[in-house]
């Protein structure tokens, strides 16, 4: 069944790089233009009816965001992570809110956290968890949260800060070497 799914995804949607991570988990990559159709096919014909989650990874070195949709085939006890890379400079992706009832929330999160737009997705432009946030999308790799915090907020006097790695080495593993 897994091979049939892989073959069909490859033939119909140009899917590539099928990789079995475990007996019950695999990943595959598709072109972003085919991603929504591939997801609809997986849901309606491939028995991958359950959307576990959708998220993004900032692969800044390749100047892409990798979107990951994780689906589960309950009958066969198998999960599939479908990846697609979108241009980091023009981060726009097809919305899947008509395929799963909770997908719009994941898309709203990705819009706020990564700046990826999903035109047509309900409430995609509304704030999600960062009320009143004026900074850049905070989950991007080039957003330095420490530098932003230092530049934005005032340090309260009388507080000291330790570098966690140095502190841990000094207190817990003083004898540790490379």
């Amino acid at each position, binding site marked *: 069944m897994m091979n049939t799914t892989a073959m069909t995804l490859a033939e119909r949607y140009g899917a590539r790089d099928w990789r079995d991570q475990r007996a019950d988990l695999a990943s595959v990559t598709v072109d972003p233009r085919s991603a929504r159709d591939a997801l609809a096919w997986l849901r309606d014909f491939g028995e991958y009816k359950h959307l576990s989650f959708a998220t993004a990874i900032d692969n800044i070195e390749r100047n892409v965001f990798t979107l990951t949709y994780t689906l589960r085939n309950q009958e066969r006890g198998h999960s599939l992570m479908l990846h697609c890379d979108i241009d980091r400079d023009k981060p726009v992706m097809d919305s899947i809110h008509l395929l799963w009832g909770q997908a719009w*929330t994941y898309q709203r999160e990705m819009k706020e956290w990564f700046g990826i737009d999903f035109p047509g997705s309900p409430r995609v432009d509304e704030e999600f968890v960062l009320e009143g946030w004026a900074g850049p999308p905070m989950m991007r790799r080039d957003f330095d949260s420490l530098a932003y915090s230092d530049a934005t907020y005032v340090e309260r006097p009388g507080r000291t800060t330790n570098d966690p790695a140095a502190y841990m080495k000094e207190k817990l593993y003083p004898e540790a070497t490379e």
Partner: protein
Amino acid sequence: MKREKTHIIPPAERAFPDLSSGKYLVMWQGPQHPGITGNMSLRLIAEGDTVVDCETHVGYLHRGFEKLMERRLWMQNFPLVCRIAVPEPDFNEYCYATAIEELAGIRIPDKAIWLRTFSLELMRLASFLMWIGGQAGAFGHGTIAQWSVTMRDYVLDLFEELTGGRIYHMYIIPGGVRSDVPQGFFQHVLEVLKIVEKNLDDIELVMFHNAIYKLRAEGLGYIPKEWIDQYGITGPNARAAGVPRDLRKDLGYLAYPKLDFKVILGTKSDAYERSRLRLLEMYQSINLLRQIIDAMPKEGIFKEKLPNPLHWKIPAGETYVAAECTRGEYGFYVVSDGSDKPRRVTVRGPSYTHAISVMERLARGTNIADIAGLMVSLHTYPPEIER
């Protein structure tokens, strides 16, 4: 192949009432409110005492865990992950530790498998005890909350004895668990389970046979079976609709395949059915804990030796590890680029869909006095939404 009838899921109908008409009342329930599970807000629009629109607002507990984890060493993230779901932190520890082990190719000892199963099942019981207090309290049964929180405290005493911590344990670590059980510990566990079981009998009698509770909870928040896949509903919320979703069976992780238990199912799929099902699962947890104690290996190591955590680099790769927590599918998606820090960690909490998409839809048409009971019947924790 057969095509599903529901090819496109239509957006849930929203009323968008004319607020200037004077017919409607806008009110916020939360973030500080006894009828809210944690710091979360519901923006409700009511016509008379009937809710016509609901929006879930989150963000009050956002601490940027996923961002912080990208800046810390693999092992340094353990004090962070347990805080993502406060009432049951062990599932975070398990998923994160197992993902690291899978990427690093580490196998854990047999004893660690059993100790992890024990820890997760005890955590399930503690979390359900907290939940049932909230569920009863939302319908005016303050006494039950007093009882169940006391019982939870006894369970937290056990965690303190086992791990040194009451709320956050950091007991499950890559390679196994942090320590073996203290002498006489399992005897204490069996004594507490006996007390809790007796208390559950009392709760069952007082709460589930109470006319007011039945009148208010029956028929409230009905989840149709076809919503389960459409909305990604898992855990007791799915099982109460008669859908057998339980990752303990479906994935067969840790020692669960060796334990004797059946997936408990409901039929009516309303708030009463969901709470009744959770009560039965609490009895089931007690039974599983007794089985685990009986089968626990007496000898053997409880953890594998790990590399120096300050210089530990995890091979590049990605994985998704999930477990059945009290609310359903709880999972960690972990990506490594081969360095000493995670490249990306995403937490999949069941509250994400239950507290937003499902809650917003179920709230419409509900009497405003029942919103708190409805919310608790979905059993949600906001921190796992916000991360």
